[in-house]
């Protein structure tokens, strides 16, 4: 009887609650990145070479025909999504001087791989750039049991770095 009661208690404690997977809204992320002065969104169309390279980076066609970005003083912010195992992970990435300034998981919907949403994992990304072969130019250690979520974030980091290179030239970056 005690065992049954324990079982029931476990089930009853699991009532529906507000969603807990949104860690920062994209709007709040942009406000934080641009200190409240968010520039107007611009659009990068995914066509021709951009489509081809983004597909190579992701391992599949990025599911959009254009991507919005926010650019100010050669510093760009991107809100990108990739599925880890089952659900999209929404990630905010800021690029400056062709390197990652910050990477933050904004919405995490997966039931596994929770570690990747925390700073002890995402703190590995700032400072990383991209090689001519569109690989990250430094190591990112994985998390046991979260292989697919780790892989998703690494792909998004590479994609943001590549997109940035398409909208900010070296000349812009040194201005």
């Amino acid at each position, binding site marked *: 009887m005690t065992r049954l009661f324990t079982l029931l208690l476990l089930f009853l404690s699991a009532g529906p609650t507000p969603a*807990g997977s949104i860690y920062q809204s994209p709007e709040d992320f942009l406000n934080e990145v641009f200190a409240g002065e968010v520039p107007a969104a611009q659009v990068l169309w995914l066509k021709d070479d951009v489509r081809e390279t983004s597909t190579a980076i992701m391992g599949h066609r990025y*599911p959009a025909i254009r991507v919005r970005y926010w650019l100010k003083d050669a510093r760009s912010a991107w809100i990108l999504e990739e599925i880890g195992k089952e659900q999209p992970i929404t990630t905010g990435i800021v690029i400056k001087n062709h390197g990652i300034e910050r990477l933050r998981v904004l919405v995490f919907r997966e039931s596994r791989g929770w570690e990747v949403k925390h700073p002890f994992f995402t703190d590995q990304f700032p400072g990383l750039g991209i090689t001519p072969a569109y690989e990250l130019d430094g190591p990112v250690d994985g998390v046991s049991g979260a292989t697919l979520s780790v892989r998703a974030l690494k792909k998004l980091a590479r994609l943001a770095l590549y997109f940035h290179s398409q909208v900010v030239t070296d000349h812009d970056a040194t201005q």
Partner: protein
Amino acid sequence: MNNPIVHSVLLAASMTLATATTAAQQPTPEHMWENIQSQQKEIEALKRSQQDTAKQAADADEKAEAAVVAVEETSTGSRGNRADRTTIGGYGELHYNNIEGADDEIDLHRFVLFFGHKFTDNIRFFSEFEIEHDVAGEGQPGEVEVEQAYVEFDIRDGLQAKGGVFLLPIGILNETHEPDTFYGVERNDVENIIIPATWWAGGAALTGQHANGVSWDLAIHEGLKIDSTGGSNPFRVRSGRQKTGEAIANDFAVTGRLRYTGIPGLELAASLQYQTDASQTSGDGLDKGVLYETHAVYQKGPFGLRALYAEWDFDGTAVTTAGADEQKGWYIEPSFKVHDKLGLYTRYEDIEGGRSQDMFDQWEVGLNFWPHKQVVIKADYRDRELDNNTDFSAFDLGIGYQF
């Protein structure tokens, strides 16, 4: 003609004539008014035309934007669609085993399909449907199994509860065993004989995660029903799994785990399981059982290391008399990734199980080749030294995938 008077007369006459001519060419005020009215109409018509053009351009922009949004929604799938909320995945592995002193075998060891469904952002279903050894049925080698079928609830951020059939939180492979994620064609033997992976049970569980990388699990679930009657597999833990098929639930079991993954590349974990009565039969000489397990996983750059220790302690006169009251094993597995697509490993295992064939130590070496990150081709060689001196070596090949 140089007379100044004559000059003056001629000048006056010409000026008079010019003035008269100009007056005759100028429009009348009425004519000018008509011109102004006409020009005003033309200006207004031009303005209207310009406004129409601007409006048409704005309408066209709006329509183009709507079309782009529609295409984006179609291509990305708007969250909330049934198709977007239901997910399918799977994995599988084919093995070739060449074991000394036995027939060679080729075996579709596992074919697995995952089905998941998200009812809301906070309530989801997950299942794992598996066919082992390709053909199931009477007299066939295979089995059809539902290894997972549970509903999970988010209680709050970092705290979930689930009820149903789920994988027990013990060991390295029990919860994550897709073939591309581990070395070796066959899974290691400690997590087969001592921890009977894949090990699932029906019950309820709580899971918590913390921002510092610490997580915990607590589950209450069906217990083992280990044979204590002296049959073909006495006191064999693996044969005691009830697999939630009309499982006897007179005596539940409880499993807890503490896990740390706060440093990328590192996992440290310890699990403890308490079986109230590991045979589900009182007074049969096999009573309570406790499983202790701890492991470490470390991956830094190309270097990897896995190590695990697990031990069962059973109470009861019959199990003690049979010498199976303590069953334990450990392994260590260093590995090295030559590059992204090729990894080498070696593994040493030492096992003292409940049967004579489950008491051995074994060396294994092999490689994984990943032509794609989720597809793997494996090869290994193992050399087993049994306590009863029926030693053998084996060569294995495998191909596996997950999606």
